């Protein structure tokens, strides 16, 4: 009886540890980022239609980008993002920028958006729902 109880406690403890570490591994993106505008998938479509100079930056790895991305997006991993690259893509500080990555449990787009804010860009749109929201809403995918 005691042995069985012991096993059960060990199992529960293991599960709790796993859940805790899993949560620790995959943190949520922040709700908002100062200096940026948080938008939804529908707003992405509207911005793409209304802002001809909009620069859409996909902050994911190249493999994910190759499998499918939003039409017109540029692939630029947040860790590889340099100020000079950004200056080439968006020469003016008021050039509209749009960042997205996998979704709400991906920190790359938020990281990239924060960098852009630091570098002085003023019109930054952050698509927090990212690729997951895009495909959930069955919007067009470009390969």
């Amino acid at each position: 009886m005691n042995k069985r109880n012991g096993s059960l406690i060990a199992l529960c403890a293991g599960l709790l540890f796993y859940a805790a570490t899993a949560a620790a591994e995959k943190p949520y993106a922040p709700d908002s980022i100062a200096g940026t505008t948080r938008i939804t998938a529908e707003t992405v479509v509207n911005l793409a239609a209304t802002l001809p100079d909009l620069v859409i930056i996909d902050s994911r790895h190249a493999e994910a980008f190759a499998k499918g991305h939003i039409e017109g997006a540029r692939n630029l991993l947040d860790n590889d993002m340099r100020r000079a690259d950004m200056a080439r893509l968006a020469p003016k500080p008021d050039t509209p920028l749009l960042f997205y990555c996998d979704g709400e449990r991906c920190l790359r787009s938020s990281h990239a958006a924060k960098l852009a804010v630091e570098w002085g860009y003023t019109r930054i749109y952050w698509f927090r729902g990212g690729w997951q929201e895009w495909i959930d809403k069955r919007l067009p995918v470009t390969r």
Partner: protein
Amino acid sequence: MLRINHISLRTLMVSLVALLALLAVLAQIMAAQYFRGAAFTAQRQSLIYVVEMASAEVLGQLEAQLVQLGSEIQARAEFRDALGHLQRTGEPGALQAALQDPFEHGFANERTTDLVRLRVFDTQLQPVLGSTSAIAFPPGLPAGLLKQARHREGADRLKMVSALWPLNERAYYSVLLPIGGLRLLGYLEVTANPTHNLRAIEAMTQMPLTIHDGAGHTLESSTRDGANRADMLPVEYILHGSENEPVLRLVSLSDVSQFNQDWQQTAWLAVIAVIVLVGLAALLVLAILNRFVFRPVDSMKREMARFAAGDQSVIVGTNMLSEFAVLADTFNAMSRELAAKIEQLKQLSRYDSLTHLANRQYFDVCIKQEWQRALRSHEPISLLMIDVDHFKRYNDYYGHVGGDNCLRAVADILRQVAKRSTDLPARYGGEEFVLLLPNTPVPSAIALADEILALFKQQNLPHAATELGYVSVSIGVTTCYTVDTCPPTRLIESADHALYEAKHAGRNRLAVAGEDGVTNKCTGCSDSAVHEAD
């Protein structure tokens, strides 16, 4: 109609217990059958859920394939050029060829997708062009797609929609994709037959699968082993279209042979266990009934039969269940009361109501019994026959009430002299009395007769109608020594003869007769002193 008055309680109760036991076993068998049905129902329900999940997965995969196919077609340079050509010149030939191309030259998912049609719609969902098809499709969008795609605004118009829909009892699966990426130019409808893909459910569920169309025709038959076996549980799932209309009927067969085998073993074990348990319970019940019901009732039955046969002394035991004890008590009370009544009746039938002496009938019985006893014991037996003198005159003088009182007084005197318990005084008839004296020789009998005469004299009961002035009696005495030659009738006749002699000798005296009836002693008798008796 069952005539239960011919059935014994034991037979009835044993039959009822046996019937109950049989019903319990039957109920167990029915419960086992019911359990099997319920188990099948539960299994069918869970397997329907499995098939539902599997078909949703298959259709999801098909949708992904059709989206990919639509994207591939749109990505082709020929398609883009043909679309641009159509927009610029209104000439549809090139786009028509581009839509026909996958059917003529193949496409990437050809082996897994049964593509049946490609069509282009404008942004207002009006048909523009389509691939040729042998199937007579209606011109517009299928209702399931149209319902989702129309009345949409803004970014929603770019969202892909899909639908499963029926046409002529067959099923089709269509996706509607925007053309032109984020700049909406129109829509591409990609339609496939999902039946081929649904075959994958068989591999996913590991159960033979047959697909039937809306008219019941078999579209796909299973190739797996066991599809035709008898011990397969059919699990039917109706695949509905996007308008909730039935489109296809999927029948998966679940192997229940192991379940049937297990169930049969379990059911048999359960039935045997119930038979054993119910049998033991029935035996226990019968043992209890036997101890507390059957045996007391049998005992009562036996005692009552004895009672009915004439033994009124029957008292039944009362150590039994309360209801039976009440019955037994009641019976015993009844028995006691009846015995008392019978005893009363016996007394009434043996004794004379006026004098309370034995009557003639009882005397006749007693004299025979005493004679038999004397015969065995070789003892002498004596009889006194006593008659009240001039009793007719007494009645005439004192009236019948006085006569009755006189007879009671005579009876009292006779009771007084009959000292031994075996001496029997009796009223023989009218004013005639007898006194039976077993084991009494002649001298004792004569002495007793003398004592009677003396007592009458002493009592001096007035009798004004005679010379004596008091009530007197005449007594005939007889004694038998050789009893075997002197039957009771002879004894009575001798006593009667002696009484006659005493009467004729003048009354208020005794006369003694021998066994032969010849008078050999007469107190105060003389041959001439013969008077006529009363």
